[in-house]
């Protein structure tokens, strides 16, 4: 359930979209999915492919702070590290189901104290033949809870104790009700092998690649700056990979990567949907197939600084929201890919079941803008710009320099808002300055950035609770950059974070969404679509999973027969 802000070219890249053909190996609970495969071309056993990776992971010690690259998760973490839960799309919404590591769905007892019992599949083994045991659960939980260099302790810091009554049973006891317990051993980190790592320097053993695996693939090699190579794990207890080898070639330059794809040096690409990528796709790719899906975990939004004039007034925020034609913006950005609908929730599609469509109330309506502004004491000046007590309705919009998609969005917004009587100045800066200084310190008025969900559990409290407002007291580390502080919202978000009743949690989360929409605390713009491209050499059920990326079912990919 981690939610992160997108750092553009430097860092956290696009997640993905849609749906998966759904198989569940072993004895784990299998849910029938309505997800659709992108292609059903039959495949043969054997062969190898080369996939372009636009970003190289910094390290492969997945629980350490160096493991922030989402590409690392896609290409080496997900294929090799076993997890307890995995995202599944059921009846049109993303949920979670136990993987084949588990003998059954973990049992949760509300308590207090809250306890979760994990029963491990007897068939589950590491690549060296050693069984996956409760000791692995204990080792992983304590390494994250108590380790020094740990990227994300969310959830693990609530673990009071972990018991291992037998090798195939682990019991976790929490110190407080924790609704997102399914994220443990599943979200940002899976299970690590205790028999190989306990008492040793985990970082040294893992950070440059490792040869063991608990998934369908093993890392054969990782040549820094060049490529990472996966080969099948012969001891995997689930469905074995069809391909003999998959090479991820690191190609940072988009134009060169597309040329390499066109000439067959790369067999598949998963490009960030920047304007140059979309132009490349528009210009045509022969002998290739593509999948564009608008159901990702990336929500691009217009963020208002709720604590700073003029956006500290609800009528002003609402007026601006009614002055913006979001559909026109989305169509301009992604119309060529067939994506034209704006987002209507503060939740990404990955956690869409927890959100509503309350932001649909904000349609372009200049009469409403007039009424809201006049009702708040504003009047139009001779220059056509609203003014109140000598202050003009002039404000700045900020995003990171060099992101062409966002720069174009700003220009469109500038035009639309000018027509409604608002003067907008573009005030962009580097990603570092924006995310490390301007946003945490509240030094902005309106901004454009992306909210990223990587696990199908709601996490609005991380982004909108008043305790998450960055301040000197918390080292400017909270995620509530827009300083949202609505009456009643903290209580609702707190209830959503601690409720173990799923239906109630959905209901409460939707209340939070409504509160945010009714006060126009932000304005969701679009869900950044995921794009997967592959040449006709590849077959199998290709699809993107918004949490696990495009290579979640790499074991089913193959050479078209």
């Amino acid at each position, binding site marked *: 359930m981690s939610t992160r*802000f997108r750092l553009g070219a430097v*860092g956290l890249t696009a997640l993905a979209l849609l749906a998966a053909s759904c198989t569940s190996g072993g004895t784990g609970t299998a849910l029938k999915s309505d997800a659709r495969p992108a292609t059903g071309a039959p495949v043969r056993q054997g062969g190898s492919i080369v996939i372009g990776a636009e970003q190289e992971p910094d390290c492969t010690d997945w629980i350490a702070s160096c493991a922030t690259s989402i590409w690392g998760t896609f290409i080496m973490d997900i294929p090799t590290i076993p997890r307890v839960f995995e995202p599944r799309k059921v009846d049109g919404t993303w949920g979670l189901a136990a993987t084949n590591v588990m003998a059954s769905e973990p049992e949760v007892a509300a308590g207090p104290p809250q306890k979760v019992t994990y029963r491990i599949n007897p068939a589950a083994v590491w690549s060296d033949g050693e069984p996956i045991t409760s000791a692995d659960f204990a080792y992983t939980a304590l390494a994250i809870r108590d380790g020094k260099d740990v990227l994300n302790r969310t959830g693990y810091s609530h673990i009071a104790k972990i018991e291992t009554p037998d090798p195939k049973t682990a019991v976790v006891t929490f110190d407080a009700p924790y609704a997102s317990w399914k994220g443990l051993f599943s979200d940002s980190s899976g299970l690590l092998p205790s028999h190989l790592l306990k008492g040793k320097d985990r970082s040294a053993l893992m950070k440059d690649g490792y040869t063991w695996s608990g998934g369908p693939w093993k890392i054969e090699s990782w040549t820094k700056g060049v490529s990472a190579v996966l080969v099948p794990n012969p001891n995997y207890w689930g469905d074995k990979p069809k391909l003999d080898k998959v090479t991820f070639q690191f*190609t940072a330059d988009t134009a*060169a990567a597309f040329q390499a794809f066109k000439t067959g040096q790369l067999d598949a690409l998963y490009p960030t949907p920047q304007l140059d990528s979309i132009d490349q796709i528009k210009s045509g790719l022969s002998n290739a197939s593509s999948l564009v899906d608008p159901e990702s975990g990336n929500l691009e939004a217009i963020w208002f600084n709720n604590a700073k004039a003029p956006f500290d007034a609800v009528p002003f925020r609402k007026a601006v929201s009614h002055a913006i034609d979001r559909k026109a913006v989305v169509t301009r950005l992604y119309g060529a890919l067939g994506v034209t609908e704006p987002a209507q929730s503060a939740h990404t599609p990955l956690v869409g079941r927890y959100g509503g469509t309350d932001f649909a109330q904000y349609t372009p309506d200049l009469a409403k803008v007039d009424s809201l502004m006049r009702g708040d004491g504003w009047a139009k000046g001779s220059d056509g710009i609203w003014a109140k007590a000598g202050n003009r309705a002039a404000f700045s919009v900020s995003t990171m320099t060099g992101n062409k998609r966002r720069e174009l969005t700003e220009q469109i917004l500038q035009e639309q808002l000018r027509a409604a009587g608002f003067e907008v100045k573009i005030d962009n800066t580097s990603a*570092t300055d924006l995310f490390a200084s301007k946003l945490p310190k509240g030094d902005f008025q309106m901004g454009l950035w992306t909210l990223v969900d990587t696990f199908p559990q709601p*996490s609005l409290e*991380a982004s909108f609770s008043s305790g998450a407002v960055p301040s000197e007291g918390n080292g400017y580390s909270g995620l509530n950059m827009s300083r949202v502080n609505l009456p009643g919202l903290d209580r609702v978000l707190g209830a959503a974070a601690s409720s173990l009743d799923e239906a109630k949690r959905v209901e409460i989360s939707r209340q939070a969404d409504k509160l945010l929409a009714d006060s126009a605390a932000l304005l969701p713009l679009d869900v950044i679509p995921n794009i997967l491209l592959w040449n006709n050499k590849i077959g199998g059920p290709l699809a993107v999973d918004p949490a696990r990326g495009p290579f979640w079912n790499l074991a089913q990919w193959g050479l078209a027969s």
Partner: protein
Amino acid sequence: MLAYLARRLLYSVPVVLIASFLLFWAVRIAFDPLARLRGGRDAGALARAAERLGLDQSIPVQYWHWLTRFVTGDWGVSSRTAGPVHGLILPALGTTLQLIVWGVLVAAVIALAVGVYSAVRQYSAGDLAFTGLSYLGVAMPPFWLGLILIQILAAWPQELLGLTDPPLYFVGLHSPDGGGPLDYARHLVLPVLTLTVGLVASWSRFTRATMLDALTSEYVRTARAKGVPKRRIVTRHALRTALGPFVSVTAVDAGLLFGGLVVTEQIFAIQGMGRLFLDSLLAGDVFVLVPWTLVIAVVVIVFNLLADLAYAVLDPRVRLR
């Protein structure tokens, strides 16, 4: 000679120290090594990382800690990869060296040939054509030239000839499955060509100018008056004199190229020094950037020294003191 070398190296030490501190300070001010952690939900991650990396100390203290470790041979650990810094820099240096060796060799041969021809046939059609082309070569930015070369020499021939693979590759220096010398050559041609065009353009102009100086000098006139054949005058007298400054410029440029191939390495997915610099800069990884700068400084100093030595060897009138 040895005293000269020792003095040159000694002069370089304060320069390198000042440069490394300024770089350390500038990177610390401008880039945030914790930027990638700021979007995470775990607020404690920032404080933990800041303490681990020593970011809670003043910049001079951080620099001093780094320097005292560095002089004892400990290059430190990258804040980006958590791996040893020498493990990042040395392989990248080797990769860039491959590009530079081939690029400089090819460029030097072509530039000498073109420069000599242009000087000997001054204002001929060929000279004018080479002059125009050299201006074009200097003006073409590598990011544009690289992509154009990919299109012209790889994509179009593959399409026109209906080949399974392009005749020249442009991702990395080897195919994923390894490959022999031919595979290496097919990967090397385009990045080396991208690098070579600019070098040939500037070096050929330089050669032309020095050759013209030599050809109009008194000793050449004397040789002509003595009836020495033209070919011999050009190769034995004028070219030998022109070679000194040429080798000097070539060596200095080659040294500078070690840190200057950022764009070329990015386009062709080659993990050399340029790409390592870019990755480290964007991540605010000062623990890599400062040793990187020191390595580049040492390389530039060494190449400058080599240039001076070469000059002295090629031109007996020059003495190093």
